[in-house]
C-alpha cells in the first residue's frame, strides 16, 4: 500500500483484525485484581416517594462489601444541560427502573442476591405517561421546579407566516408522531471504575464523549473534573445512547467510596428500562404552498416526551425546532416546541438527534402535498431543495449543498419513474431526503471544533492522539488515513493512541456527526504541523534547504533521490532533545456561530444532504410490509473511505427500517416497560433488511478535511419517511405515527374501503 493518495480508497478498518479474532477488549471484558461487582436495585414503581430503604438483611449476605443509596450522592443534581438527576434516587423515583441502591459484593451473584433482600417502602404518587396530559395544570408533577412538567421550550418566528398562508394556493395540516425506540447497540452499558488512595478516579467504559463526560460525572460525584480519568476500550456501538451514560459514574461512586475496582455491566432488560431512548415527538405541521408546489410557509408545534430526566433531550428539542428547515428554502417559519417530563425512561440522543423525528413529518407531508397537487414527489423536492450559496431564514449558510444531485442519482438508479404508481396495489416506491450538520455550535457558545497531536517517535513510528472516540464507526481508520496522507507515511504503520483522557487533549466527543469533519480536520492540521517540524529539523541536521526535502514512505527524500529513514531522524531528534519527540499540534475551529436569543446564527461549518429511495411490497390480506430494496445517495463532500462510508449508510438504513416498521417501546398504565428484551422489541435481522445500494455525491466542501462533510446521522434519517411514502404508493394509505404496523395498515385499508363504499352509495 503506497503512502500517498490514500484518501478515497476502500480500506478495511485498522482494527478489524482485532475484532474478527475476538482479541478486542470491550468494557465488559475487563477484569482487575481485587475487583468487586455491583448490582443495582431498581424501582418497580414509576412515580413514588421513597419513605425508607432497609438494607439490613441485604448487608448480612456473606460477601457483600457495601450498599450505596441516594444518601451517598451529592445533594446537588447533575445533568448535561438541565441538572435534574442523581446517581441514585433521592427522595423520589420518577420512572420504573430508576436506580435506588447499589450493592457492591465479591461477585455478581452475591450482589444480585443482596439486591433481592433490600426492602424499600414507597408512597405511590400519580403517574403521567402522556406528555400532553402531563402539561395540563394540576397534572402530577415530576420535578418541583418545572411547572406543568415543562423541562424546556422553544419559540421562533421568521418572516410573516400568517401573510404567507393567506397567499398560499393550498394549506395542509397534519399531525405526526414518532415512537420511543432504543439504540439497541449490541454491547450493553458497562464500566469498571477504580480510585487510588488520593481519590483519583479512573473509569474504563465505552463512552462516546470520554473527555467531555468528565464535567457531568464530576458534578454527579461531587468532585472536580481533574480527579477523573477515563480510558475508552473498544466500544460495542453507541448511536447517541452512550453520551456520558449514567452507569460509569455510578460505578465510580462505589469505587471512590471503597477505593477498590468495581465493575457493573447492565443486562439487556436494564438497558431497555433505564437507558436513554429516542425522544418521541408529536409534530403538528401546517404548510402553505404555491400552485407550483413551492413551500411558502411552515408552522410547527412540537411536543417532545422527555421521560423522567432530561439528559440530552433539551438539545434534541432545539434541534427538532429548526434543523429540518434547512432541507428546503422556506421563507416564513413559526415553531413552538415543548419538552415535557413523563414517568418513563429518560429520553435522550439517538442518531438523528431530533432531526430524524421532524424529517419523518416533513418528508411525509411533502409527499402528501405532491400527490394532492399532482407533482412527482421527487420533483417537488427538487423544486424546493436548498441550493449551494443559500443562507436560510435561521442564518444557516450552505457553502455546498448536493441535495438535487442526491435526488437525481437516487431516482435514476432506483428506476423511480418507471416504478412510481405502477405497483398495482401491492408494490410501491417512495423517496425521503435529509439535511444535517457536521458538528455544531448550538450547545456551548465558546466551543466547536477539535484538537489533535501527531507524534514521531525514535523508531520512526507516527502516532495520532485524538480524544474523538471511535464508537465502532471507524474514526480510528479515518484519522490514520488523514495522518498517512499528510505525512506520506505508510498507512498500515500509523498508530492511533488509545483515548485516555490523561494523554489526549480535550475533545467534545463523537456525536452530532463531528468525528470526521472536526476530528479529521484537527488530525490533518496536527500532521501538517509535524511535517513542518520534521522537515525543519531534517534540513538543519542534514544541512539542506528544507524546501528541497519531502516526506515519502518512511523516508525523508530529496529531489535527486537521496534519502534518510524517518527512524534515523526521529532517533536523532530524540537524542538531541534528551527524550523529546517531534510532535505536531493542530486544532480546527469551524466557521460556526452560537445562535442568538432568537436562535439565529449559522450553527455549523458544513451541511451534508442525502436522499433514500425505498421499495416495498404490502400484503393487503395481512398488512405485512416487506422492504424489497433501498437506495441511498449522500452528499458528504468527499468520501474519505468509501468502504466505511457505505457501511454507515447500510447500517443507518437498517436502523431506519426498524424505526419505521418494527420497533416500539411499549409501556403499561403503571409505567412499566412491557418489552425490555429483543424477544418483543424487534430490531431488524438479516431476514428483514434487503440488499441496498449506496453511492455518494461529492460537492467538495472547502472547509472539510479533503472536502469531507458528515455522514453518521444523515445515514439513518431519509429511509423512514421513504418507507412510509412507498407504502402510500403501494396501497394508498398514509400512516402518520410510527411504527407502521400491519395492524395499522389493515385498519387504514378497511377505513379506505369503507369511505369508498360510502362515496359509492352516495
Amino acid at each position, binding site marked *: 500500500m503506497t503512502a500517498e493518495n490514500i484518501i478515497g480508497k*476502500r480500506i*478495511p*478498518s485498522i*482494527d*478489524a*483484525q*482485532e*475484532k*474478527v*479474532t*475476538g*482479541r*478486542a*477488549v*470491550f468494557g*465488559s*471484558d475487563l*477484569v482487575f485484581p481485587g475487583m468487586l461487582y455491583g448490582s443495582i436495585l431498581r424501582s418497580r414503581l414509576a412515580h413514588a416517594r421513597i419513605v425508607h430503604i432497609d438494607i439490613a438483611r441485604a448487608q448480612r449476605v456473606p460477601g457483600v462489601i457495601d450498599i450505596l443509596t441516594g444518601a451517598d450522592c451529592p445533594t446537588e443534581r447533575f445533568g448535561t444541560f438541565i441538572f435534574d438527576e442523581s446517581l441514585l434516587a433521592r427522595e423520589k423515583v420518577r420512572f420504573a427502573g430508576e436506580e435506588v441502591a447499589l450493592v457492591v459484593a465479591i461477585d455478581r451473584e452475591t450482589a444480585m442476591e443482596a439486591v433481592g433482600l433490600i426492602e424499600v417502602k414507597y408512597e405511590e404518587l400519580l403517574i403521567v405517561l402522556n406528555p400532553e396530559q402531563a402539561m395540563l395544570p394540576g397534572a402530577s408533577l415530576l420535578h418541583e421546579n418545572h411547572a406543568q412538567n415543562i423541562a424546556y421550550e422553544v419559540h421562533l418566528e421568521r418572516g410573516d407566516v400568517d401573510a404567507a398562508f393567506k397567499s398560499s394556493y393550498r394549506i395542509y395540516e397534519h399531525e405526526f408522531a414518532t415512537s420511543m425506540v432504543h*439504540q*439497541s*447497540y*449490541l*454491547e*450493553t452499558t458497562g464500566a469498571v471504575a477504580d480510585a487510588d488512595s488520593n481519590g483519583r478516579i479512573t473509569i474504563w467504559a465505552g463512552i462516546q464523549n470520554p473527555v467531555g463526560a468528565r464535567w457531568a460525572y464530576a458534578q454527579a460525584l461531587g468532585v472536580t473534573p481533574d480527579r477523573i480519568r477515563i480510558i475508552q476500550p*473498544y*466500544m*460495542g*456501538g453507541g*448511536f447517541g445512547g452512550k453520551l456520558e451514560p449514567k452507569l460509569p459514574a455510578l460505578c465510580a461512586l462505589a469505587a471512590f467510596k471503597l477505593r477498590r475496582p468495581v465493575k457493573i*455491566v447492565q*443486562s*439487556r432488560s436494564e438497558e431497555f428500562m433505564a437507558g436513554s431512548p429516542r425522544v418521541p415527538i408529536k409534530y403538528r405541521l401546517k404548510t402553505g404552498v404555491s400552485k407550483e408546489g413551492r413551500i411558502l410557509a411552515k408552522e410547527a408545534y412540537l411536543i417532545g416526551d422527555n421521560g423522567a430526566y432530561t439528559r440530552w433531550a433539551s438539545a434534541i428539542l432545539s434541534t427538532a425546532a429548526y434543523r429540518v428547515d434547512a432541507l428546503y428554502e422556506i421563507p416564513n417559519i413559526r415553531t413552538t416546541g415543548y419538552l415535557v417530563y413523563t414517568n418513563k425512561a429518560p429520553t435522550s440522543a439517538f442518531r438523528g438527534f431530533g432531526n430524524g423525528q421532524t424529517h419523518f413529518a416533513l418528508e411525509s407531508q411533502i409527499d402528501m402535498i405532491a400527490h394532492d397537487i399532482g407533482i412527482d414527489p421527487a420533483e417537488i423536492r427538487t423544486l424546493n431543495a436548498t441550493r449551494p450559496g443559500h443562507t436560510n431564514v435561521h442564518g444557516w449558510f450552505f457553502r455546498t449543498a448536493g441535495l438535487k444531485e442526491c435526488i437525481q442519482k437516487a431516482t435514476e438508479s432506483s428506476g423511480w419513474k418507471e416504478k412510481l404508481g405502477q405497483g398495482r396495489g401491492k408494490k410501491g416506491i417512495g423517496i425521503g431526503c435529509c439535511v444535517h450538520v457536521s458538528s455544531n455550535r448550538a450547545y456551548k457558545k465558546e466551543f466547536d471544533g477539535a484538537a489533535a497531536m501527531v507524534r514521531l517517535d525514535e523508531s520512526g513510528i507516527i502516532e495520532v492522539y485524538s480524544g474523538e472516540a471511535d*464508537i*465502532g*464507526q*471507524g474514526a480510528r481508520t479515518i484519522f490514520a488515513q488523514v495522518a498517512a496522507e499528510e505525512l506520506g507515511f505508510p498507512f498500515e504503520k500509523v498508530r492511533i493512541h488509545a483515548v485516555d483522557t490523561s494523554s489526549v487533549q480535550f475533545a467534545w466527543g463523537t456525536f452530532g456527526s463531528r468525528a470526521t469533519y472536526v476530528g479529521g480536520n484537527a488530525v490533518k492540521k496536527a500532521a501538517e504541523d509535524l511535517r513542518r517540524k520534521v522537515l525543519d529539523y531534517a534540513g538543519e541536521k542534514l544541512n539542506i534547504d528544507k524546501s528541497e526535502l519531502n516526506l515519502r514512505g518512511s523516508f525523508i527524500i530529496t529531489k535527486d533521490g537521496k534519502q534518510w529513514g524517518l527512524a534515523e531522524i526521529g532517533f536523532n531528534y530524540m537524542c538531541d532533545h534528551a527524550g523529546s519527540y517531534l510532535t505536531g499540534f493542530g486544532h480546527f475551529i469551524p466557521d460556526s456561530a452560537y445562535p442568538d436569543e432568537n436562535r439565529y446564527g449559522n450553527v455549523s461549518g458544513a451541511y451534508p444532504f442525502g436522499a433514500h429511495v425505498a421499495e416495498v411490497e404490502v400484503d393487503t390480506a395481512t398488512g405485512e410490509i416487506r422492504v424489497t430494496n433501498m437506495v441511498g445517495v449522500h452528499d458528504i463532500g468527499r468520501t474519505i473511505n468509501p*468502504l*466505511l462510508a*457505505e*457501511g454507515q*449508510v*447500510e*447500517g*443507518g*438504513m*437498517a*436502523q431506519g427500517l426498524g424505526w419505521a416498521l418494527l420497533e416500539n417501546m411499549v409501556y403499561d398504565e403503571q409505567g412499566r416497560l412491557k418489552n425490555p*428484551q*429483543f*424477544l418483543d422489541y424487534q*430490531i*431488524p*435481522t*438479516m*431476514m428483514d*433488511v434487503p*440488499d*441496498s445500494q449506496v453511492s455518494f455525491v461529492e460537492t467538495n466542501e472547502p472547509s472539510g478535511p479533503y472536502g469531507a462533510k458528515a455522514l453518521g446521522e444523515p445515514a439513518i434519517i431519509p429511509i423512514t419517511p421513504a418507507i412510509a411514502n412507498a407504502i402510500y404508493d403501494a396501497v394508498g394509505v398514509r400512516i402518520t405515527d410510527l411504527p407502521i404496523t400491519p395492524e395499522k395498515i389493515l385498519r387504514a385499508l378497511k377505513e379506505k374501503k369503507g369511505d369508498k363504499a360510502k362515496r359509492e352509495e352516495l
Partner: protein
Amino acid sequence: MKLIELRVNEIGYQLWVWPHETLLTVLREKLGLTGAKEGCGVGECGACTVLIDNEPVNSCLMLAVEANGKAITTIEGLAQGESLHPVQEAFIEQGAVQCGFCTPGMVLTAKSLLDHYPEPTEEQIRKYMSGNLCRCTGYTKIVKGVAAAAQKLRGGK
C-alpha cells in the same frame, strides 16, 4: 459445585462449576475467553455463539454442565496462530466489521454455514445467520463477506 470436562479450542479443561452457571459465563470468567459476548442473555442476539461439534450454539442458554465432555470452538480458536480463517479474512476485506461486538458470533456461525453449505445462496446465508443480530452494518457487507469467504474456501481469490 460439579466437576466437568470441557475441550475448548483443542485444550482439555477440568473445571468446578455451579449447576446454574451458563457455558458463556464459564468461558468468559473461568477460562478468560472473552470473545463470546453477552448481548441479551436470552438467546435472541447470537453474540454468545460458540460452536459445539461445529454447530452454532447460544452459549448463554446452555448450562456449563450440559457441555460436559463436549468439544467447543470459540472465536479465539478459529485462527491458526497468525493465519486467519478465510471467513475472518473476508470479513476484514469486505468491511463486514464495525463495532465488532457481534463479530465473533457472526464469524463462527458463518464458518459453520460454509462447512455445511459450501456454495450458499444469498437467501441461505441470510436464513442460516438470522439468529445473529447486528446493529451497525445493516448486514449487507456481512452477507458479502460470507459469499467472499465461500469463494476463498472453494479455492478462488
